[in-house]
């Protein structure tokens, strides 16, 4: 993480993405041309246990989306809340660090893997700041 201190009011976006939306990508934080988004925390909860895909990710909206945090489908068991700060099944990439200015956030499965199976929806709560 860059040696930079960021101070901003924390916001949170929450909702539900259907499996089809997770496969295709669902915009959850729209881009702001003047701001960069930093993911600071959150959680996911699947309805129906997820399988097939590798992970469900919070990514930015660049053409080659940059991962903020990825939750392994092995942890997305029906009804279980998976904390982004959990010690297992979570991969933090551009997490607590600014994404490119002018980019939003989306919830999207790992693109290299097969489509998300079994689960019918994923609830998400994503905490972030805009800097």
């Amino acid at each position, binding site marked *: 993480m860059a040696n930079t201190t960021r101070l901003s*009011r*924390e*916001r*949170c*976006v*929450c*909702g*539900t993405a*259907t499996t089809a939306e997770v496969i295709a990508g669902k915009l*959850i*934080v729209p881009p702001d041309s003047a701001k960069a988004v930093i993911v600071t925390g959150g*959680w996911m*909860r699947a309805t129906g246990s997820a399988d097939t895909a590798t992970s469900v990710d919070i990514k930015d909206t660049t053409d080659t989306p940059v991962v903020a945090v990825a939750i392994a489908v092995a942890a997305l068991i029906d*009804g*279980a*809340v998976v*904390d982004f*700060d*959990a010690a297992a099944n979570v991969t933090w990439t551009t997490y607590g660090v600014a994404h490119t200015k002018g980019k939003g956030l989306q919830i999207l499965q790992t693109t290299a893997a097969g489509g998300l199976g079994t689960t019918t*929806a994923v*609830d*998400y*709560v994503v*905490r972030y700041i805009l800097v």
Partner: protein
Amino acid sequence: MANTTCDGRVRCKIGRLTVAQVNASTLVLPARKGEAYVIIGGWFVATGSAGTATSVDVIDQTTHTVAVAVACSALTNGTHIPFLKSSDITWTTFGTALGSNEGVKISKTVGGGDVTTTTALDYCLEYLVVPNQA
């Protein structure tokens, strides 16, 4: 969770309730006309281990919809129990809007036995305030 998206500023309410207040069900966030609360996180710490009751719940004011329930077996003296803990927590209307125009209470399991042994409960509720959901 309803398939709607809520986006708002994260707010936090911290306080302490006596066990009598928990058993009586105490309002901790007041009702707001035209708005609803979304509980997104928080924690409890009991002073003295909680007994008898099944759980201590965060519920909405009138319909008693449960946002999150913390098992009393986990509320041992001085133990910090985050709502995102992987055990002892039941998430219901968590991360989604509670009742329209309703406040938020902390309560023993509605209709259940009293919380005993413990003397107080420290709480932190992390929440959003959003327009009433359809």
